[in-house]
């Protein structure tokens, strides 16, 4: 039996099958292989992403630089003015300052007027006294 079984060892597959199968298998990709052109595709995607990223960074730096220049050199108040709350506070403070200066002005001017009035009333008194003296003198002359 063993000797008969050994005779099967001469059994061979068809040559045509062997060639077809071999060629097909060796022209197939292995599991884990990247498909053809995958590296190129990956490179293209990476290139585009890198370019896009650089442009974004560039735009950010330009805007940041312009903002810095605007804030620090050209118009320091402009950016702070963009804040409506700050602006409102500033406006309110400005209003109060104006009112206070007006009150001060009114107070100062009232004192000046008072002084002037007093001075004027003193002059009037003097003029009244003079008038009385003149009347007395005229009365003396006429009598």
């Amino acid at each position, binding site marked *: *039996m063993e000797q008969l*079984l050994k005779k099967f060892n001469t*059994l061979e*597959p068809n040559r045509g099958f062997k060639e077809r*199968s*071999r060629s097909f298998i060796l022209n*197939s990709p*292995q599991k884990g292989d990247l498909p053809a052109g995958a590296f190129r595709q990956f490179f293209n995607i990476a290139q585009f992403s890198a370019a896009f990223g650089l442009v974004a960074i560039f735009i950010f730096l330009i805007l940041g630089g312009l903002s810095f220049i605007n804030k620090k050199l050209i118009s320091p108040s402009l950016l702070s003015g963009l804040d409506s709350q700050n602006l409102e506070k500033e406006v309110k403070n400005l209003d109060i300052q104006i009112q206070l200066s007006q009150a001060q002005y009114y107070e100062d001017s009232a004192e000046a007027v008072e002084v002037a009035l007093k001075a004027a009333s003193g002059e009037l008194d003097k003029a009244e006294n003079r008038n009385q003296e003149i009347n007395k003198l005229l009365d003396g002359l006429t009598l």
Partner: protein
Amino acid sequence: MIEGEKLHIKKAKKGNKEAFGLLYDYYLPKIYRYIFLKVSNEQEAEDLTHEVFFSAWRNMRGYKDEGFPFSSWLYRIAKNAVIDSYRTAKNNISLSKTGEDDFKVIDRSGENLDIDFQLEKIKKTIPLLRQDYQDVIIMRFVEDLSHEEIAGSMGKSEGAIRLIQHRALKELKDLYENGNTNGTIIKEV
């Protein structure tokens, strides 16, 4: 085992086609015979053999040397391919499908007609055995593998292989002598 097999395997794992081609050339007849004697159909044997080597090439990167010969890995793939073929529509193949040309490669000159008859009878008897009996009979007596190699491909100990070999040979002889090859196939998957 072919000369420099480990180097060829190493190269094939990295996708070297020539290296795998050498392994393919060496192991194709062995795997084909193993499958053919189990399925008893040339066309199906070719299809399954192709599947085995295609799967081996595809999964070559994942191959790990576990101390067994490379052939053990291929036989394991082949065994699973045959089992899968039984589970699909190809189940219960009639032995009548076996063509007379199946042994065209075997020398038929002179007094070999009697041997041809005996071989044909054995070929029809082998698929009647249990799967593990078939495996051991083919690997041990047709392919002349060592018990260690068979143990590696079947995931069993060498002692177990010797025991299976003894029982398989006895059952094959019984079936052969009793002529119980009427086309009924008993397959234990």
